């Protein structure tokens, strides 16, 4: 289960790259006429989605990632 979650988060991370909007070198004249380019909006939107996904995973799947039931620990560990 946890490996599926890791794979999903890494896949979403990779999909934030604007692969689907790639241009050929020297395509400077293909800039949009007005407003923010679609690929910029896509990237910012995808980045926000990724951030929300990671925040949700940390909230809901923390124990799954830790691989054991939660054992709430507080300050004062055994560290010497």
């Amino acid at each position, binding site marked *: 289960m946890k490996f599926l979650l890791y794979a999903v988060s*890494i896949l979403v991370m990779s999909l934030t*790259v604007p692969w689907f909007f790639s*241009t050929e070198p020297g395509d*400077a004249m293909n800039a949009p006429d007005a407003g923010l380019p679609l690929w910029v909006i896509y990237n910012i939107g995808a*980045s926000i989605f990724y951030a929300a996904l990671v925040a949700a995973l940390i909230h809901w799947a*923390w124990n799954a990632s830790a691989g054991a039931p939660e054992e709430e620990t507080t*300050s004062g*560990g055994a*560290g*010497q």
Partner: protein
Amino acid sequence: MIGILAQVSTVATGEPVLGTSGLIFIGIYCCLLLLIGWLGHRAKKENTLADFYLGGRGLGFAVLLLTLYATQYSGNTLMGFAGDAYRNGFNTLSIVMGMMSIIGAYFIYAPKLYRLSHSRGYITMGDYLTDRFHMRSLTVCAVILGIVALCNYILTNMLVLGKLVVWLSGGGISFTTGVIVLAVIMVAYEFLGGMRSVAWTDMMQGLILLLGVTLIFGAIFYYNDGVTGMIERLHEHKPQALVAPTAAENREWWSRIVLFFFGISMYPHAIQRVYSAKSEQTLKRSLQFMVFLPLITTLLMVLLGVIGAGKFPGLDKTGSDRITLLMLQDLAQTGNSGLSQALVVLFVAAIIAATMSTIDSALLAISSLITKDIYQPLRPSLSQDQLTAFGKGSSIVLMAVTVGFAIWLQDATTIMALIKLKLELLCQIAPAFFLGLHWRLLRGSAVLAGLLTGTATAVLMKQFGVLADSGISPGLYGLAMNVIVLLVVQALLPVAKRTSL
């Protein structure tokens, strides 16, 4: 970072950037750092390594969040990112995602590592490696990689600090004096309170950084007609900034994100902050907030650089690294000069804060690695008092050596390529954490073989420019070799006993 060096080194003498009031503000800021250091000393609970290097494992939500934030953003955030965006347009958005990806990496290893660190008393990353793999050579190799990367990190930031002082004072304060004074301040508050002082000063530095970035961007965005004005000027002066990246540029984009994912998440001082959290809830909440912070830091600086590209077209590399200051100077003419002056002071304070918070955290981490992972195993009979005293002494020596190197290298350029190697090295440690924490049969000898192969591959490819045009970082080629060798050696070795961790 190199961009900042180039930028500040162009102004060796001339008019001071800060007036008397600005210099007084910076002076008060430095005094506050010392005061916080002393308060950290007063708050000390015991004279142990855990108290000195992890603040007694008691960092609460606000402190943990802001120390993570201040540590991960250096002066480069304010100067280098905007300059990069000026030159490359919206392609620099890759850095925003890169900074977010670090938290995605924490999600994979921090939950389990945090629990282990509290139940088994880890202080450094070497403690986990020793406990998990029981292989001294692996621990030493990983620790050496961490130290080399952090030394590079400190050195570049020290060079920035020194040149910044020369620039701010118009040459009135020399590089050597500036570096020594700021180094003494950092060592003083770190010596007094260790991680507690560093985290508390990081908190103040993080707030200045956050405030500086948002206010500067807000003012510049407002006086430049927002998104509409930005796009119109780009259409007129730099339409290529609006064009989507090519396939090669997308590969480079992806490579940058992945390098951040595996490299920055392995910073030894970031791992120590995971150990330092007061509770699991504190760590979770801090990371949940951290993942959104690039949207109000990195993204704003990228947009600022893009606005600058439309406003001041035709700048060269050095000029474009100065774009934030140009925008502030422009603000003084078109907007409110009083506001602009205040923002320049805030901007300078934010750069100094970001740079100092990076140096002090890295210095503390190196000191802990030397004391706990290298010195203690050689002298196992030493008491906690003696080890803490050694750790404090090593911080002073390390800082003195770094200051010496910074003064020696202040005008050197050829060595800069070498000290750029940081993330390429750190990401070779990643399999020990990402795989080691979740694969109980993984053996230390397989991890060590992978680490050595990956490091050699990354360094050689970087040095000789192999596949430099591919758009993929040498560090990632090294990491790929690292994992392949790890899997092959693991398959060849007899099946190991499952670790209890």
